[in-house]
């Protein structure tokens, strides 16, 4: 049994080439069918995401997967790229390294954003597509199932995917949610049209925010923005009143001076009646005077504050790496042990068949010589023979299983074949 892999990721393949190499779902299905026709009897799974394109091939001894160079050429041909361009940037692996790589990929250890969870569903989709195109088989099936199990273990036994890494998600989940229990009764005020406002609002809407007001210096722009962000437009001239009514502010203007200086906020503060206010100042330069953050009941976070929190989370994820790698190692060893043991199945089958055949022949001879035996006695004797055969085979099979853990047990298999005269 052999496993082969070729693939490129964001680390090795430049973006321009990655864009050309990427497969849509239809293109991937077409490529898998082409592979099936060209290399019959081999299994293949194609994983294509925005950051990686990887081909996992597998085959039994009678139909080993094509050599790595052929896999590279196949990928190049499918995407209409010169193989000479692709060859230097694609990685090649075989056997255990393929398994380890897939397990790391599925667990998010090889992702651009360490521990990102989307890769698990992408791995699932890739395997499902291979099943639909009938290019998946027992080898890739076992390997992908084990990969998903590994990803689940890494997610539950380490904190790798727990902390958020994007500024909008940290702003909402780690800070705004620390202040407010619910968002469906809160007023969200968006000031400006910065690109991060949209993403932050997506998280706020997921958290339940419904009442969204958008203000902009230009009224037309505010209308358009409000329509785009799913809120209602407010007047920039009413900023003080809007600040007084808001519970959470997302500010992303491109202004060179603070849009909300301390004195303006002081006017708004009198109308707030002590309600807490969360300000996510995502603008550079800042829209809110930093002194406002010192006011009681105001929780002001600038882009630098949120960036520092993201960085702390990133470091925290890095600290989880040794634990995650240990799980990947353990699962790889277990899978390879099972795989090696599977390769002994034909020999074990022949060995068992030989013992059964000999036993049956001896039983027939015995029953012919002692015809007085009734059915119950015959069944007892047959069971005794079977138990004897199972006990005699137990030790060699256990040795074979133990040997499989450290690699294919070629020596033992050869010895068994010769000792028991097992024919291919």
């Amino acid at each position, binding site marked *: 049994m052999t496993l082969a892999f070729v693939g490129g990721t964001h680390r090795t393949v430049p973006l321009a080439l990655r864009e050309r190499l990427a497969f849509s779902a239809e293109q991937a299905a077409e490529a898998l069918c082409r592979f099936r026709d060209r290399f019959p009897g081999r299994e293949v799974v194609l994983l294509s995401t925005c950051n990686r394109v990887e081909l996992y091939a597998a085959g039994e001894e009678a139909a080993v997967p094509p050599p790595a160079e052929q896999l590279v050429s196949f990928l190049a041909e499918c995407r209409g790229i010169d193989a000479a361009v692709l060859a230097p940037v694609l990685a090649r692996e075989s056997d255990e390294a393929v398994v380890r790589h897939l397990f790391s990929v599925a667990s998010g250890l090889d992702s651009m954003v360490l521990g990102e969870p989307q890769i698990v569903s992408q791995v699932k989709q890739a395997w499902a597509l291979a099943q639909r195109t009938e290019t998946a088989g027992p080898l890739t099936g076992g390997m992908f199932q084990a990969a998903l199990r590994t990803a689940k273990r890494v997610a539950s036994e380490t904190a790798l995917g727990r902390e958020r890494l994007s500024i909008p998600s940290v702003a909402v989940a780690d800070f705004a949610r620390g*202040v407010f*229990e619910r968002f469906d009764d809160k007023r969200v005020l968006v000031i400006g049209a910065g690109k991060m406002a949209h993403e932050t609002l997506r998280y706020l809407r997921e958290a339940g925010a419904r009442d969204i007001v958008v203000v902009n210096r230009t009224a037309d722009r505010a209308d358009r923005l409000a329509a785009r962000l799913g809120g209602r437009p407010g007047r920039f001239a009413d900023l003080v009143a809007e600040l007084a009514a808001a519970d959470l502010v997302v500010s992303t203007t491109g202004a060179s001076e603070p849009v909300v200086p301390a004195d303006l906020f002081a006017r708004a503060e009198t109308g707030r009646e002590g309600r807490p206010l969360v300000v996510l100042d995502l603008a550079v330069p800042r829209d809110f005077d930093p002194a406002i953050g010192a006011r009681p009941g105001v929780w002001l976070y600038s882009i630098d504050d949120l960036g520092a*929190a993201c960085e702390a989370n990133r470091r925290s994820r890095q600290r989880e790496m040794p634990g995650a790698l240990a799980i990947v190692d353990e699962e790889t060893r277990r899978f390879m042990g099972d795989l090696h043991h599977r390769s002994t199945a034909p020999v074990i089958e022949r060995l068992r068949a030989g013992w059964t055949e000999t036993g049956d022949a001896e039983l027939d001879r015995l029953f012919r010589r002692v015809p007085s035996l009734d059915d119950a006695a015959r069944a007892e004797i047959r069971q005794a023979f079977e138990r004897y055969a199972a006990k005699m085979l137990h030790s060699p099979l256990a040795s074979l299983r133990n040997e499989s853990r450290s690699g294919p047990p070629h020596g033992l298999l050869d010895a068994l074949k010769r000792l028991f005269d097992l024919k291919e």
Partner: protein
Amino acid sequence: MTEFISGISVVCFAASYLVALACEASRPLFRSGLRGAVLVGFATAGFLAHTLFLAWRAAHEPNVPLSSAFDWYLLAAWLLAGGYLWLLVANPRTQVGLFLLPVVLGLVGAAQLSSRAPFPQSPATQVWGVIHGSFNLAASVAVAGGAVAGLMWLIQATRLTRKRTPAQGLRLPSLELLAATTDRAAWIAAWTAAAGFVSGLVLNAVNRQRGLLETVPWNDPVVLRMGMLVAWLIAAAIATRALARRPEAARVAAWLSLASFVVLTASILWGVLGTTRHGVPPTQASALREVVP
């Protein structure tokens, strides 16, 4: 089964709560898939043993059930432990147990130091006795719950002020929820403590009027400390509400809730360690009168 229930002791559920507390305390230190199950298991086992222990005592006491200082502390601990268990199941990621379980264990400890003898009762004043005890129990639980919420508010606010993401294994409820809990607890504590104090006065007056039992003098330490506690709790509740429309209201309420807990603890310690005629059977009260001028 009866033998099993009668064999349950304070140590059984106190030890279970202690293991649950150790599990809670270990959350920030390391991750474990098993800890959640162990935590829920021990917290549930402790609460079940606690419930059976109180039920056994209630069923086998000749007087009004659970009418000793010992039972009173255990009932307060039981209510808080029940609240903890509910929070643990409803919101397993928040670490309320680290703050609530020490209070539960403290109350169990106070029970161990208290008398198991029931408070003196007369059939004519039994109802007033039950009302008096129930209100005081509710007030103590509200003060303890409010203090736990107030402490968590201060920790959560410190984290948010320092702009730090939540530490691993130390997730706390939102400031909004904690502030609402602190505010509600302050009011419940104030009104139930006042009702408990007034019902105590009525009970004392009825006893005095009918000459039923030994009455507690107005200058008894328990009357004084309860009076002070009630005055403090009402003042704290009014201050909390008076500041409600100011931005610093939640912080002040959190500190006041902690101060109320300190006042309550001091009051309990005064009660446990001091000399009083409150809740003392008539014969002992007469003896005390000779000793205490």
